[in-house]
Structures are given as C-alpha cells and as structure tokens.
C-alpha cells in the first residue's frame, strides 16, 4: 500500500478521534464556562450516551433516529443530576464541587455496570455503512466517514445555536460576564440548568457517535475524561477555536503514537498540558482563566 494511502488513513483516523474529543471537550467547556462546575462525571455521561444508543438501536430503531434520541435522553439525565446534586452546590467552594462530581462519577459508573453489565457491547450500524470505500488506494470504512460528517454537523449546529439564536447568545454572554447577564434580568438559574443540559447532551452525542468506533464498556468514560481535560486546558477555557485546534492536535498525536508505537508520546501531551497550565493559564486561544 503506497505512502499516500497510509497518510490518508492516519489523517482520517486522527480526524475521527479528534472529532469525538472535540464534542466531549466542548460540552465540558460549556458547563465549566457558564456555571464554574468542573464535571468529573462528564466521562460517565459520554458512556451513558453510548450505552443508550446501543439499547435504542438494539430495539430496532434506525441508527440516525437514535443519533437524535440519545442526546435528548442524556440531556434529561443531566437535568435530573443538575436539580438534585449540582444546584445545592452553587454557593459551595470549587473543591467540594469537584469531589461531589467525582462521587457522581462513581455512582454513574456503578449504575452503568448494574444496568448493562460488564461485557463490551457492539452497536449494529445500518448495512450500507458497513462497506468500505477506497480513497487513494486505502479501504476506509464508510461509517467512519459518516462520523466525521456527524461531528462537523454537531459543531456547526452548536456554532449556529450559540451565535444566531437568542438563547445561544445569552449563554455565550453569560460565560464571559455572568453578573452583567443577571443584571439584564435573565434568571441565572435557568442559564445554569440550560448550560448543564447542553453539556450533557453533547457528551451523549459524542457517546453514540463513538459507540460503533470503539468498544462500549463501563471504563470508556475514564480515558475520555482525561483526554477532554487535556483538550480544554491546551485549547483554553471558553474558546471554541482553541478546543477545535487542541482536539485535532491530541487526536493526531494519539493516532501517530499508536501508529509509530512511540511509547512516550502521551507523556509529551501531558507535559504540554503542564507547561500551558503553569505558564500560559489562558491556554492557546482561551479568554477565561482557570481560577
């Protein structure tokens, strides 16, 4: 197989991986940007998204319908979590919120194991997506290309929502100067709830999108959580451009590391994260700082 084919393979693989990182990281970013809650259970919601997608598809629903249903269900779960557990933490210090969301992660992971058991699951993707098409001599699965399209669609949809719709603009404004928005008469409570639901729904979308790509097992949330931390740190808080750049960068580094089996590639990523946290608190493009 010629060098070009391999290059195409690597780029497509890193784009797909980066796309999933992006959706999860943006969800995490929105929740933190708007309500200063760093949700450690975000990885578990991503896993719940994958499992819900699996269950819906196994009940015979078409995959694309499941693509819409799963985020809604995870969003509802997000609402329940926000009302019961996150809201009372509004006034508490950041450290306690972190520890609380960590307990929530334990709880959700345990729930996943209780409901769906331990064995890995596979999503039955529609027949036409199972073929491979050849691009520049390499057979690339059609499904992974549709994942790229879905990721792009989700990001464009999000961009339109944030910039064009009224609610979107309020959310965007609230992430920079929360006090000002509340002075304009918007109930900050709804904004916090809205942000949390939107963040969870994005985790759900990433889950169902990534489901067929990787294995769906209870531990899928853990690695994704750490990768999304790396992305929002390097990309910078509250910046979509930063998140896009960082997500694709990490996707590329991880794919290359696996391709060329450089053992310490991930160490370089963590080192980059450390340098940025310590010396460039705004990340590469971010506006806000991690207080």
């Amino acid at each position: 197989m010629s060098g070009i084919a391999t290059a195409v393979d690597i780029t497509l693989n890193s784009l797909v991986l980066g796309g999933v990182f992006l959706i999860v990281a943006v969800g995490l970013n929105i929740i933190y940007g708007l309500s200063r809650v760093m949700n450690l259970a975000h990885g578990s919601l991503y896993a719940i998204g994958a499992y819900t997608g699996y269950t819906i598809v196994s009940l015979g629903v078409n995959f694309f319908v499941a693509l819409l249903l799963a985020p809604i269900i995870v969003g509802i779960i997000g609402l329940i979590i926000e009302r019961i557990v996150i809201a009372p933490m509004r006034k508490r210090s950041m450290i306690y919120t972190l520890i609380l969301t960590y307990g929530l992660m334990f709880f959700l992971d345990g729930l996943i194991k209780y409901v769906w058991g331990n064995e890995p699951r596979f999503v039955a993707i529609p027949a036409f997506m199972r073929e491979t098409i050849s691009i520049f001599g390499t057979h690339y699965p059609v499904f992974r290309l549709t994942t790229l399209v879905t990721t792009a669609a989700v990001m464009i949809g999000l961009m339109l929502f944030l910039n064009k719709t009224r609610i979107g603009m309020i959310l965007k404004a609230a992430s920079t100067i929360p006090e000002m928005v509340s002075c304009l008469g918007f109930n900050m409570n709804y904004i916090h709830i809205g942000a949390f639901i939107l963040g969870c729904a994005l985790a759900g979308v990433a889950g169902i999108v990534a489901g067929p790509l990787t294995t769906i097992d209870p531990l899928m949330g853990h690695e994704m959580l750490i990768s999304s931390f790396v992305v929002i740190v390097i990309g910078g808080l509250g910046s979509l451009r930063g998140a896009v750049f960082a997500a694709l960068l990490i996707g590329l580094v991880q794919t290359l590391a696996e391709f060329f089996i450089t053992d310490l590639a991930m160490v370089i990523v963590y080192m980059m994260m450390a340098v940025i946290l310590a010396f460039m608190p705004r990340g590469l493009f971010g506006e806000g700082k991690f207080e």
Partner: protein
Amino acid sequence: MKKLLVVTISMFSMFFAVLMVVAQPAAAVEPVKIGVLVPLTGIVAQGGLEMKYGIEMAAEEKGKVLGRPIELLVEDTQIKPPIAVTKAEKLVYKDGCIALIGVFSSGVGLAIAANIDKLNVPFLTTHVMTTEFYNLHPLVFRSGQLANDQTAVGNVKGILSQPELKNRTYYVIVHDYAWGHDGGERFIALAKQNGIKIYNESYDKAPTSTKDWSSYISKIKASGADGVYMVLITNVIPVFAKQAADFGLQAKGVKFVSGAAPGPVELEAGGEACYGIFSASDWSWDVNNPISDKWEKAFFAKYKTIPSDAAVHSYVGAMNLFNAIDKAGSTDPKAIAAALKGISFEGPYGTVRISAKDNCMRNDAVWTETVAAPENPFGAKVSMKVLKTFKAAELGPPE
C-alpha cells in the same frame, strides 16, 4: 433538624452493614473451605464468571472431600494485583481456606505467588498462561489454559499444517504487558525457525485499555501483511476482529491466528467478523467424546450459557485439586502439594496431568478455526471447529 435526621440514618446503615458481616451462619459439620479468586468486574468479567461456574460444577460433582462438604468462598480480584493479594489474605487468614484456585491474569497470578510463603496454602491457577509459572514455587501449580510456550508450538504447528496459512507474512500485535510480550516473542522465535515469514519482529504493543484499534489496523494494511498473529486478552479479540472487518481486512483475505483461545460468548458479540480466527487451545465444544458431550449438556442445563474453555479448565483444575486433597488425606499444605505433583484427571479434553517436574499441567490440545456454528443446543452462532488435535508430548515442554 434536617442534619440530625440525616446523621442518624447514616449511623444506622453503618451499623446494619457491620451486623450483616459478623452474623456468620454456623455450619453443622466443619466444611473444607476452598478460596476462589476470579475477576467478576472489569473487562474480563465474563471469563471470571465462567471460571466460577466450572469450579462450582466440580464441587457439586465431587460432593465431599476428606468426608467433609466443600465450601467455595468466591472473591473478586478486579484483575488488580494489590486487591487480589488483599482478597487472598482475607480468604486464608479470615475465612480459613486451605487452598486457593482460579485467577485469570498473569499479573495477578504472579502477585499472589510472591506472597505464597506468607499465605502458606497450595495455589492452583486455571487461566494463567505466563511461562514464569514453570517451577515457580513448591506450593504454586497450573492446571489450566495452555501456557504461552505450548500455545506458540500449537499455533506454529497448526499454521504449518494448513497450506493456505503456511506461506503468509504475519503481522504480530500484542497487549502491552508481560503475558503479551512473552506470547509474541515465543511465536516469532518459533515461526522464524520453521520458515514462517514475520513482518514486524519488534512486535506492536497496544495498551490494555485500547478501545479504538483504527491506527493499528491502518498500520497492518500499510504493511501489506496477509496474516495477523494477535496475543490479546480474550474479550478484546472480537473487538479487534470487528474493527478489522470494518476496515475490510477479512474481505482482502487476511487470516488471523490468536495467541489466546477466544471465548465462545465473546465471539457471539462479534458476529461474522469473528469467522476465520485460528488458534491452538485446550478445548472447544466442537470436541466430540463421551465425557465432553456429557459435561457440555450438564453445564448448559445448569448455567444456560455456551460452555467455554475458561469453564472447562477451572472444572478440571478443581477436580485435580479436590482429588489431591483426598489423596493427601489432610489439609496440610505440604501434603496437598505433594499429592498434586503427578496427579491426573480424565476430563472433557482427555487426561490432564500435573507434571511432577515443574508443577504445570500437560494435556492434549486442539487446533481450531472459528466458523458459522452448525446446529447446536446452545444457540451459538459462532463455533470453534476442530481441525487438528495435538498430543500432550507434542506441545512440551519436555519433562
């Protein structure tokens, strides 16, 4: 007031939990307690569950040891060595088990073996493949899955016996820990001796947590190798096969040889993507002999799941252990160890003898290919068809 109410609830629940632990039921005749260490959570929970079933069947079939009932105490190792060591200590010191059996991964097996002097009980593993278990310790035995060296010999002989597999170039990919490295290195060494072409002698090492195999598969496609030798943990085999199918490897005619026997239940999840995987293993339910057929029916009747090699290894291992305790005539660890040396049991995959020289088992094995399952009582879609059988002596190691 709210806080007070909440505090009393938490106090009550703690008290209740302690009560539940302390109130142990008193048994009439003192049973012989055997400690069972299997992974019930984590990625290999399915294999752990099947091991537990196999040991339970053996205990049921054996009934009594030294004239006393058998009591199995099961603990979850979560395939984490430090937790497995704590659980082993609990089984021996607190519950008073006189022997330990089970263990799925090499790391856990080696960690417990490192503490065996302190525990001072015989320790029989039924699903550990690392070659470090040969002659490791007088109290440590293996009566389960073929070791890495035996599997490598079986796979090389199997490849040589199939014309369509012999002259392929094999791409080697392993899980990144001691068992994977050992399995990969042994196959590469043996394959080179027998003229089987290997594409990457410095084999690929993938972290055990890998979920997305796309970059590894792209590398295999780029290499142009038409054979893949994979040393992956059982439940990851169908995942790898499925993603390889997504990328069209099977469609391009690439054949897969596995350094670990795939589990039937896991294969079901993979569907057709799992057809065409060759591997040397002890047993599959396609083996037809009176003992094997009887055992399969009894297993399926009791547990309603496809009989697997993890279950049958543990069943045979447990029978060997129980017979050894009877032979020793006491629960003294040294006596049981002496009895275990050289003991053998006529099980579903022939005689399984624990070699007196290195405390590890010798038994016949089969060379299988995964195919669409014929009509079968278990409702299995994928089956491991037996192509060739090996005699114990063929696989070695010499005694």
